[in-house]
């Protein structure tokens, strides 16, 4: 919020009450109020606490991070250690996805959704609030597909290897582009055939819900919403990019 120099936090006491803290966070709130800046929640230093990262600021060479200390306070880290990622992030259609793309237990940030890109920029967090970047090429016009109006990109571990992948869901399409993370900034594009689930997702009012609906620590999909339905269709991931009863294809 413009004019603020604090980050208000309401820490739950567990009984419905909260302890409200409003501690100084230097210039972080001002940076967060910049036009187009996206505020992302994640554990960016692997300490088990939720932090806040900022991307898409104009002319930045860094990803400012407010690292939570667990008591309502934050340590602001703003290491200018990136060259390419911030420039990609500034592009108008770019969407930032938070996930653990290298499986190290920390949250990372990937960018999708710009039609002309042939790469997936990723900022991998380290344990100090800093990042290192990769800008690796991605096949099969993945970003062009991600940019199609109505397409939604989801970060999740769809193959159970402990690393977040990126799945594109285009309502009405049974073939979902899936960028499987290899952990080093590279992604292998495959396609998951979800049959009628994809067709049904185009129904007016349908909403795709992402979660681990069977408790196997692999990300699943569900559909909810359209009038006249009597069910909640689920696509349960069976690991290795396979959903129960359906097929995965690709190179």
């Amino acid at each position, binding site marked *: *919020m413009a004019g603020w120099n604090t980050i*208000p936090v*309401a820490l*739950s006491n*567990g*009984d*419905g*009450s*909260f302890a*409200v803290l*409003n501690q100084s966070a230097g210039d972080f709130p001002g940076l967060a109020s910049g036009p187009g800046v996206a505020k992302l929640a994640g554990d960016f230093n692997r300490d088990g606490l939720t932090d806040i990262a900022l991307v898409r600021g104009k002319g930045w060479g860094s990803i400012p991070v407010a690292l939570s200390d667990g008591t309502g306070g934050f340590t602001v880290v703003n290491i200018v250690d990136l060259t390419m990622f911030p420039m990609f992030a500034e592009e108008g259609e770019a969407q930032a996805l938070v996930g653990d793309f290298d499986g190290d237990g920390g949250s990372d940030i990937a960018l999708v959704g710009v039609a002309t890109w042939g790469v997936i920029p990723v900022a991998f967090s380290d344990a100090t609030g800093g990042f290192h970047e990769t800008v690796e090429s991605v096949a099969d016009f993945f970003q062009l597909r991600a940019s199609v109006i109505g397409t939604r990109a989801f970060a999740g571990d769809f193959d159970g290897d402990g690393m977040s992948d990126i799945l594109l869901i285009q309502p009405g399409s049974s073939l979902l582009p899936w960028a499987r993370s290899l952990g080093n900034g590279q992604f292998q594009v495959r396609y998951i055939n*979800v*049959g*009628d*689930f994809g067709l049904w997702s185009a129904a007016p*009012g349908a*909403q795709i*819900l*992402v*979660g*681990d*609906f*069977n*408790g196997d620590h692999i990300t*699943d999909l*569900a559909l*909810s*919403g*359209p*009038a*006249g*339905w*009597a*069910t*909640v*269709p*689920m*696509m*349960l991931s069976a690991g290795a990019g396979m*959903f*129960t*009863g*359906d097929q995965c294809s690709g190179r």
Partner: protein
Amino acid sequence: MINAPVGDFAAWSSATSVVRVVGDFSGNGTADIALTGVPGWGTLPVAVSNGSSFTVANPGVGNFAVWSTTSGVQVLVGDFNGDGRQDIALTGAAWNSLPIAFASTSKTISPLGPVVINANTFAVTNRSIGDFAAWASMW
């Protein structure tokens, strides 16, 4: 694909202005689906996943259902009491409190035998939070 029947839950989830949220409200390790934000409701429907199908509960939550329809409200999912179940909080309105629906379980002894029935319920609190609520409404 599993296409599990969910009874009235499917119709409720198509209501105008409904907000669908995902979380483990039952604490069984699987993600469930809850619905809120619909004018006229006094309940918080939840479809509890067992991994292959859903059990639907529709517990009353009193004014929480009404508050969830307030303009500008954001519905937040988190485990606000550390019991392993995710709860639902409301923020973003010009209030001075922060309503929470704590997910819990009611247990009933069946009159037909020593069977304990567990039903998903929510315990609602609405404690004062001072200026925080006003700050939240600025975003």
